[in-house]
């Protein structure tokens, strides 16, 4: 029984990662269209490969968790949930593919994404910025700039923002919000205020 509980906790963790990654992919995929950014689009493709791997691992975890026959529908639910998440990740990859195929994103697409998300920008956090070494909660970026952090790029990794996550110097922040907030965020990221 103990081992069952342990494996279930692991399943929950994996599921959370899958869910987070797929949502990050959707955000980045639309952003790649808006910015016509191959770099972002390629990132989405790399994340898609990671999701495929994670999804297989997740399915193996579920199947090898040693559930009892009467628990089988509960475990079927987990498998189906994983499958849904995987499909969303696939769809995000297909959106990014439009950019990678060199189809100039139609002006309508930009309008749609701009309208829905206002604008998307990326800024690098300088060492002198007051944001460095603060958690996202402490940094109060939305309160100060009206911009929302969609994703954080740290070295080669993309992270989905969480309130307790600590911002590091050299992080690249992808943010969306009203155009007026753009300058404020750039200032905040570049130097001490």
């Amino acid at each position: 029984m103990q081992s069952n509980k342990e494996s279930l906790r692991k399943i929950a963790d994996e599921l959370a990662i899958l869910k987070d990654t797929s949502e990050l992919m959707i955000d980045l995929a639309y952003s790649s269209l808006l910015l016509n950014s191959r770099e972002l689009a390629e990132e989405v493709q790399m994340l898609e490969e990671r999701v495929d791997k994670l999804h297989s691992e997740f399915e193996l975890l579920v199947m090898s968790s040693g559930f009892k026959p009467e628990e089988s529908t509960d475990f079927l639910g987990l498998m189906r949930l994983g499958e849904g998440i995987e499909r969303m990740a696939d769809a995000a990859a297909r959106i990014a593919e439009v950019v990678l195929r060199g189809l100039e994103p139609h002006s309508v697409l930009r309008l749609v994404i701009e309208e829905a998300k206002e604008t998307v920008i990326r800024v690098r956090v300088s060492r002198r910025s007051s944001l460095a070494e603060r958690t996202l909660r402490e940094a109060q970026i939305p309160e100060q700039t009206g911009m929302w952090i969609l994703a954080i790029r740290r070295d080669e990794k993309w992270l989905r923002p969480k309130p307790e996550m600590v911002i590091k110097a050299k992080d690249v922040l992808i943010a969306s919000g009203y155009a007026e907030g753009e300058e404020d965020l750039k200032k905040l990221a570049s130097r001490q205020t």
Partner: protein
Amino acid sequence: MVKPKKIEYRPITVRDALTEMKDLSEVMIDLAYSAALMHNHELTEEVLELEERVDYLAYMLNMNIMLAARSAEDAEALVGISTVAAATNEISDAAADIASLVIQEIGIHPIVREAFEKMEEKLTREEVKSTSILRKKSLGELELAARIGIDIIAIRRGKRWIIDPSEDETIIEGDMLIARGAPLGIEKLRALASGMMKELE
């Protein structure tokens, strides 16, 4: 099972159709996870209703794209839009399938559900009753985020959906509020919407 409705052409701009599809699909993702994890039939119904709307918009968008293309260049310019629209539709389909687990009586293992509930803020759906003090007040006036830590992510008013409502949006009787927040805030919202709680500190 919902019987698919007959689709008839209606002129709608490609931009409007895709904007709405994108907004709706994003709300559907949130609602679908909540529906499945809380095993909530009402949230599932909302997701399925939204899914039907997204499907309808996808048909309208495709028809309008077909009419817009007059040359190979047009087709090349427009194929990106139809690809994105198809992917957005697929996201909403996947969300609908996740929500449908509830109808099929397929559960999510309780321990996994618990683990998720701890991590995630909860989503709820509350109907505004005739005795509620929320009636006739705008979201800007109510300041629910500051006062009770609740974010209204959508309002369903009859057949119409207001996604990401603005500050000037005024709540009326019968509105279905889709809101996100911590459990305590959700309790307060429920009491306010049902008319049980008469004051908002």
